[in-house]
């Protein structure tokens, strides 16, 4: 591996600037003449806009202009769209309601934007925003998806009757029903997956700059995928043609999915910049973030799992109602379908699966992918159900899982996925050994003597990363391809720039991607720079989400490196008067294998650019690009074990230990991987114990609109994690990488809840398992 190459624990190159406050985020950007924007937002969850009066606001000090949605529509700016088409089971396309960047007829959730104020200072813009008078006719609102489907519920979009966006299904219902009818045992359970707010440390921001002379726009934005943002803003929102729109996502302080989507604010800032003639910057405050960042999860599911007399699962039937909020966000359609139901086989050999998913509008913030996106919902459902079944059947949870594990690969599930490789028993065994599962009864007895309730729970998860291949996702409704691009530019002195279509917003790409190059070319890490996040620099890319940057983004770099190596070897062979097939690249030199003849890397680079002595017919330069479209998803999997102690007097859960045993395939930088696992588990524990977006059911007001009421995990809520890896290299990409970005958030919630329900002896518990809820479950309140 070497000290800097693949497999080394290299400290992150980017940390110096982040830790010393030298990062450059959108809100740090200042350009000449820049003004500040504030959005006027709906205080109502559902209302008709009768009139908007901006006259007083326009007269306020410092105000440049106050712009409304009607003018935006007249200027041809398009409505926001969901980029993934889902068809209902009757073949009809999904019912997508209109989402205007600035509403001018109807508002559908608290926070829906209705106008933008541009002023000299932020304070003046705020003052003026308060002076905008909107006359609303308040309509009844509904916040829970199950309620929105009931007859008589308020209608949110005219073209989505009964608030249903789609009624989708997958699998063989007949086979599942037959298996349920003849089962030796059926476990039934209702599963709630709580709604989460993404809470990246950096709030969203946008800076729109219109250049009159060139008729050109620049957009600085907090995006996980600037190229997708440019594509969508050009092709669907008519902001500007692609060649007239540059999108830059500089340092971005976390996304967790919420910065994949293109929101009203960036479109509006660009349009407002043209209208006002000044650059317009908007930065969300924390309450705006709670109100308007796309939320995650929010499923209610009914589950039936059938077993034969040998405790083998014979069928799984799932009916899920998914809350989409007031509008269909960019990827929303795919989340409770192809990112969720296709993972319902878990790690198990499940002969028959049927899932029916109802996608529903409510008067709440849009819901879309959040760390894990669909896969945490599938894992939580499956692993809570397995645990419940083990308790009902009276066998150990480990044994029930073991009996049902898939042990031969490749494995075709009944729900599309084809797992290439894995070793689920290895992770289960490793986790149980690390957690000293066998010693648990003694620990429980000791806790009992102190008046505490101990519990232990496990979760065996599988997920799908690097969503692909493009043709397959296209056939399932995706509006884009899901390949990645890379360009390797070798400079004349041998230093290297790697341009990638992936985007780093905390993942450490500047380090891991450079480690790949260092391994391949034997050059120092410091001589390699990773360039990303600017549509003027990187031609095209699909961005970072779904743990795709390693498996897909680095594979593209590997392909481009292949081409660079081929050309470099040709040059070296020419310079060394050797055969191209005898040249090897080692320690920064190109050598003739088995001889002491070599030429240093920089010499080859220089020769490529001086072009004084190249092989006949060779073009000068050393720069290669590649697009990589994977052959399959990758399938990280693992086993998590959580041990808790509950205080019966207060219902408070203390995490005693948390063990993670993951198979991520090959690992580039173990330290960064561990960091991803730690962060993911923190978010998963947050979901299990603390976090939950709550709306007032009758008014649709957001009750958890600040950290006073939305509980984020803090350091002292969390134990030290014990992390290990069991490795089966992925077979579908050249690096054998599976991905690690989401696993922690996917695998951990069921382990925590299985442990608490084990401790308190009551299985009837929903997330977040707050002390109040646990106490009520223990004491029958």
């Amino acid at each position, binding site marked *: 591996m070497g000290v800097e190459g693949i497999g080394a624990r290299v400290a992150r190159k980017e940390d110096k600037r982040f830790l010393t406050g030298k990062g450059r985020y959108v809100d740090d950007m200042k350009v000449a003449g820049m003004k500040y924007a504030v959005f006027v937002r709906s205080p109502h969850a559902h209302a008709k806009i009768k009139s908007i009066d901006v006259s007083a606001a326009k007269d306020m000090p410092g105000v440049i202009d106050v712009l409304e949605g009607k003018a935006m529509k007249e200027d041809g700016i398009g409505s926001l769209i969901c980029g993934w088409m889902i068809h209902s089971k009757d073949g009809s396309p999904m019912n997508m309601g209109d989402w205007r960047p600035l509403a001018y007829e109807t508002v559908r959730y608290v926070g829906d934007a209705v106008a933008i104020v541009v002023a000299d200072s932020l*304070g003046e813009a*705020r*003052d003026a925003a*308060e002076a905008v008078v909107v006359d609303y006719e308040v309509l009844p609102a509904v916040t829970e998806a199950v309620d929105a489907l009931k007859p008589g519920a308020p209608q949110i979009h005219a073209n989505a009757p009964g608030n249903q966006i789609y009624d989708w299904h997958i699998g063989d219902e007949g086979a599942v029903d037959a298996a349920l009818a003849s089962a030796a045992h059926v476990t039934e359970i209702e599963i709630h997956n709580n709604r989460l707010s993404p809470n990246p440390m950096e709030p969203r921001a946008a800076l729109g700059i219109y250049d009159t002379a060139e008729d050109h726009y620049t957009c600085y934005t907090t995006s996980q995928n600037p190229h997708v943002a440019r594509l969508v803003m050009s092709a669907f929102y008519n902001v500007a043609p692609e060649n007239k729109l540059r999108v830059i996502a500089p340092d971005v302080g976390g996304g967790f999915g919420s910065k994949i989507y293109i929101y009203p604010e960036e479109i509006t800032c660009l349009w407002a910049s043209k209208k006002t003639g000044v650059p317009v910057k908007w930065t969300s405050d924390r*309450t705006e973030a709670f109100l308007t960042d796309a939320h995650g999860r929010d499923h209610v599911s009914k589950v039936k799992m059938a077993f034969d007399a040998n405790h083998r699962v014979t069928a799984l039937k799932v009916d899920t109602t998914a809350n989409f909020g007031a509008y269909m966000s960019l990827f929303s359609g795919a989340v409770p379908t192809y990112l969720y139901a296709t993972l319902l086989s878990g790690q198990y050999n499940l002969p028959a699966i049927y899932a029916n998913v109802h996608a529903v509008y409510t008067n709440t913030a849009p819901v879309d992918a959040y760390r894990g996106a669909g896969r945490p919902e599938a894992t939580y459902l499956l692993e809570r159900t397995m645990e419940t079944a083990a308790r009902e059947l009276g066998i150990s949870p480990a044994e029930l899982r073991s009996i049902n594990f898939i042990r031969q690969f490749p494995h075709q599930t009944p729900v599309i996925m084809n797992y290439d490789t894995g070793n689920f028993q290895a992770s289960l065994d490793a986790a149980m050994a690390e957690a000293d599962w066998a010693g648990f009864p003694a620990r429980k007895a000791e806790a009992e003597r102190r008046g505490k309730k101990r519990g232990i729970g496990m979760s065996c998860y599988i997920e799908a990363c690097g969503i692909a291949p493009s043709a397959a996702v296209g056939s399932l409704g995706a509006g884009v391809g899901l390949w990645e691009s890379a360009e390797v530019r070798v400079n004349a002195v041998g230093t290297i720039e790697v341009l990638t279509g992936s985007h780093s917003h905390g993942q450490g790409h500047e380090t891991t991607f450079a480690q790949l190059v260092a391994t391949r070319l034997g050059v120092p890490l410091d001589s390699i720079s990773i360039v990303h996040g600017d549509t003027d620099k990187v031609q095209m890319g699909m961005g970072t989400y779904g743990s795709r940057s390693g498996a897909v983004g680095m594979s593209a770099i590997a392909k481009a490196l292949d081409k660079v190596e081929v050309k470099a070897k040709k040059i070296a062979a020419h310079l060394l008067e050797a055969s191209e097939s005898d040249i090897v690249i080692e320690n920064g030199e190109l050598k003739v294998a088995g001889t002491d003849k070599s030429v240093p890397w920089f010499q080859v680079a220089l020769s490529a650019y001086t072009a004084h002595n190249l092989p006949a017919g060779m073009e000068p330069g050393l720069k290669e690009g590649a697009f990589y479209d994977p052959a399959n998803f990758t399938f990280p999997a693992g086993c998590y074990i959580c041990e808790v102690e509950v205080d019966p*007097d*207060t*219902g*408070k859960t203390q995490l005693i230990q948390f063990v993670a045993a993951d198979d991520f395939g090959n690992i580039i930088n173990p330290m960064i991987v561990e960091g991803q696992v730690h962060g993911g588990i923190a978010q998963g524990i947050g979901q299990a*114990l*603390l976090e939950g977006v*709550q709306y007032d059911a009758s008014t649709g007001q957001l*009750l*958890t609109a600040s*950290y*006073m*009421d*939305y*509980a*984020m995990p803090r350091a002292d809520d969390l134990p030290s994690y014990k992390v290990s890896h069991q490795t089966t290299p992925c077979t579908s990409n050249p690096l054998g990488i599976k991905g690690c970005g989401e696993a922690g958030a996917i695998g951990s919630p069921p382990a925590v809840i299985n442990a608490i329900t084990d401790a308190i002896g009551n299985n009837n518990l929903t997330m977040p398992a*707050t*002390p*109040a809820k646990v*106490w*009520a479950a223990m*004491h029958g*309140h």
Partner: protein
Amino acid sequence: MYETNYHRASSVDEAARLMGDAGEGKYLAGGMTLIATMKQRLAAPSDLIDLRHIGSMKGITVNGRNVTIGAGTSHYDVASSDALKAVCPALCHLASHIGDPHVRHMGTIGGSVANDDPAADYPSAVLALNMTVRTNKREIAADDFFVGMFETALEEGEIIVSFSFEAPDKAAYQKFPNPASRYAMAGVFVAKKGSDVRVAVTGAGSNGVFRHQGMEAALKAAWAPDALAAVTVDAGMMMADIHGNSDYRANLVKVMAKRAVAAAG
């Protein structure tokens, strides 16, 4: 934040005078509540009169068992005072659990008590330790000070200058923090001085901080956690919100009271 005029007072009298001249003035202490409220545009004082530079409002003096704490003393200074720890460690413990280090270095006891947040910690100590609240105009007994949520006996422009009390024989504070804000979901301060026992509850009551007579009587009869077993905490008097219903809070009050008695020894 709306625009406001900032004034720095160097004495209590000057502060009161500045307030008299102001339109809609507010005193500023640590700003940990007030500034946040102003940033959210929920408060719009025309003038801010900063009390932080008034030396006479800061510091802790302990004379025998008599304690005086200046209203401008930070939570950190209360938490880390050795003199106070020697006579009333319970109060140091309480202060050490308010917010986070930033808040404890900025926030003041006077600001907390004047603000009287129903989930704040200090009001329970003021009641249980039977503190005398000294203002620039008068002395107010603890039992007369708290009127309701965010409501005290302070008159317009009145400044809390200090708090004084005689240290109890035994005392302890136990707090069950709200998982999100870490203010008190239920905080109980118990204090025993001679035959007198005071039990004050914060965070849980639907009308702010209060003394619990039932628990006081039980503990006067027998100073032991078990003495509270038969006492009922009326859920009807408790607050209910997304973090816990009134049954849960009533339970917490009793559990925290028992733990406080146990901790007081």
